[in-house]
């Protein structure tokens, strides 16, 4: 392994004070909030000394029981919907929530993987999602794939494999390119710098899509093979699209899980996430590992986008911003950096969006999501499943 191939790491002396290990820095940032508040109160006089314990107890209680509070809230809203419209409405909304949640989960994983490994909120990720949806749309439209899919059952299978494989490959390459061009050079710069380039890349991709695909919804020709209901549960119709979305999302998430835990590259990713410098010392090619992370995250976003297009039948140039920011909340809810957490967080956000919206009126759906974001960051910055920082992968 040459000096160049391992990147800029070795040129920096390890353990030098101004450049602490990234992992320790994050741990501090995420866990220190209550302590920091206490320190400030202590310095501020006698009054504060009596006020602090009450504050600490309340804070501690909410923080400690945050997962339970969220779960109780979701359960209450599900029961509320049951009271509102009976089992049919509850069933319909549960179906809607699972479908929406599956899409958010696939995008949230991309956010969380990138954050886990380089501590960057990749704001371009939502737009990679939309862009890869357009890749799939163009591939399906221009290479006779739609005809192939309509020809026979076997043709359909081949068409699906081709569309997923090629779009995911293209999206992966896009992700790697973005990392190479916009983030790699800034890896050791102050955190604000790559954040700004991320926003820049996001606008760049949106502008590109606006110019190429126009301002309106682009109809992606929802495939006719997937029309109709698979089965009905009482009065709740479960459509083939619902099963496809959910099934595909679960398969991809388990495949990713196996990859991260079972393969050498997955192990490399986990170790890089835990401690980049130490991983480097162990001979892990950091650049390649980070590139792989971007590749996989973007490929999953592509899968999410194909699933989205099949479910909704249309794409829009600025869709990624909207969907992306909700998926980002899902990633934070699950504990940013925690892949399993992001998957579960996606489904929880789907439930909050749908059941909260059903009960409180659709105008509140997004307010609820972002209220949750604020609450998590205040009371439980590590998210529902991110408590054990060391085992985060």
């Amino acid at each position, binding site marked *: 392994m040459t000096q160049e191939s391992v990147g800029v790491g070795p040129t920096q002396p390890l353990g030098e004070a101004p450049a602490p290990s990234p992992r320790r820095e994050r741990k501090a940032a995420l866990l220190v909030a209550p302590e920091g508040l206490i320190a400030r109160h202590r310095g501020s006089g006698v009054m504060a000394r009596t006020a602090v314990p009450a504050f600490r107890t309340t804070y501690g209680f909410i923080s400690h029981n945050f997962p339970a509070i969220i779960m109780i809230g979701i359960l209450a809203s599900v029961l509320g919907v049951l009271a509102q419209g009976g089992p049919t409405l509850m069933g319909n*909304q549960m179906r809607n929530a699972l479908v929406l949640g599956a899409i958010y989960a696939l995008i949230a994983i991309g956010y969380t993987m990138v954050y886990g490994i380089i501590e960057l909120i990749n704001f371009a990720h939502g737009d990679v999602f939309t862009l890869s949806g357009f890749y799939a749309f163009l591939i399906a439209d221009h290479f006779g794939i739609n005809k192939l899919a309509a020809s026979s059952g076997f043709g359909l299978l081949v068409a699906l494999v081709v569309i997923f494989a090629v779009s995911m490959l293209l999206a992966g390459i896009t992700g790697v390119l973005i990392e190479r061009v916009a983030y790699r050079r800034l890896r050791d710069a102050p955190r604000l710098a790559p954040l700004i380039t991320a926003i820049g890349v996001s606008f760049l991709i949106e502008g590109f899509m606006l110019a190429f695909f126009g*301002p309106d*919804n682009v109809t992606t020709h929802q495939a006719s093979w997937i029309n109709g209901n698979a089965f009905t549960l009482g009065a709740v119709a479960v459509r083939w*699209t619902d099963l496809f979305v959910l099934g595909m999302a679960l398969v991809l998430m388990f495949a990713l899980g196996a990859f991260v835990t079972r393969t050498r590259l997955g192990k490399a990713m986990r170790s890089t996430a835990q401690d980049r410098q130490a991983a480097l010392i162990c001979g892990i090619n950091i650049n390649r590992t980070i590139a792989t992370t971007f590749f996989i995250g973007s490929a999953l976003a592509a899968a999410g986008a194909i699933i989205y297009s099949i479910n909704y039948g249309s794409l829009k140039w600025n869709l990624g911003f909207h969907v992306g920011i909700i998926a980002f909340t899902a990633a934070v809810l699950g504990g940013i950096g925690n892949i399993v957490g992001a998957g579960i967080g996606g489904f929880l956000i789907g439930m909050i969006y*749908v059941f909260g919206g059903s009960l409180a*009126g*659709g105008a509140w759906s997004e307010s609820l999501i972002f209220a949750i974001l604020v609450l998590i960051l205040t009371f439980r910055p590590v998210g529902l499943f991110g408590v054990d920082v060391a085992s985060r992968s």
Partner: protein
Amino acid sequence: MHRTAAFLSLASIAALGAVSACGTSTSGGSSSSGGGGLSGCHGTITVATDLPLTGGDSTDGPFPQLGAQLAVTQANSNHVLGGCTLNYVSKDDSSVAKNGHDPAQGAANITSLAADQSVVGVVGPFNSSVAEAEIPVASQNHLALISPSNTNPCLTTNQAVPASTCGITTSSLYPGPHTYFRVIGTDLTQGEILAYIAAKQLNMTKAYVFDDQEAYGAGLATIFKQHFASDGGTVVGSASLPGSTTDFSTQIANAQSSGAQVIFFGGTSGNGCGLVRRDEGKAGLTLPFLGGDGCQDQKFITDSNSGSNTSEAEGAEATSAPDATKLSSAQAFYSAYSTAYSSKSAPYNDGKNEPYTPFGYDAMNILIQAIKSVLLSNGGQPPSSTMTFRDDVVQALHSTNYSGAVGQTSFDSNGDTTNPFFTLYKVSSGNWTGVNAYQVDSSGNVSVKS
């Protein structure tokens, strides 16, 4: 005098080359008089349009803009203002950030137009939310605004609707003289007609009402709800969702559960009108769908049909601007439009592709007539002070009685047209097809306009 005559003949030669100004005299009413006592008029008078031309509104705004521009071209080639010429400025109130009409951009446009001392009147804006931002600026600068398409009633009066449903009060809109006019009926008329259609024509008693949270959409939904209730119906549920919403299945499930018989959408297809219809189909619902003029476009059909049912748009109904394509008064305008813009790419080469095209044309002609009457009453010359000129134009607009492409237009004291009517359209074989025109008489009775 020699110089003027030479100028005139030069100008008419140029005009012949540019546009063969056919049909002006029939649709332009008194505009054919060729300047009357204004041959001694000197100078250039600027009129402008402020309409959304790019982004999500690129299939709406350019049509009234081209209609208004045609009116100016015709007036100049017919020397309607005699020796004075009209200079035309087109402003775009779209922004990249909003991907379409942007109130902030609109206000900035009016500010810059008002600062231009040669500007005496503006045709626009297209959207009510933009009008809310523009009217105070225009009113403060005594600048006449004539909208071809604003249907939010709150822009001219807070009395006919509960003030609480207005996002803005007229007192705050008009810090200066009342300078705003419109050549189209308001949502008061439209919502009343829509409720009449739902309750009396479709015979539905339970409605689920969507709106897109904008001044136009939320306003129309409120008025629909009021009249639907007074027509004997019940609103079983409602949802107010932002324009960025891409999935309406939660609310469709609620509508289904509430036993709704008709789905109403107050808003624009850019804000999800077609997507609601799409999700209705996805949930297997086959309820009648009713919307306002914001839904009546190609985007609605494309979006509706993008889901599992590729003919989901069929049967959906929406009221919209009066279908002027069938009015005998508008025929001359449409043929002049096609001649003038034959070199434009589709759909812009045919004025019939957008309902507001003749309204843009009439609005500009009304403005030009008002300028003309000011010039005439001022001894054939523009008033020397810009503010006086603008005030006089506003005065002249108040006594408008103009026979144009969409019929006989005059304004009441609020600036609203006395010629309000809407046409009901239905999607059939993938196209919006006009069904009937509905009008509301002064005592509030809805009837089919024959």
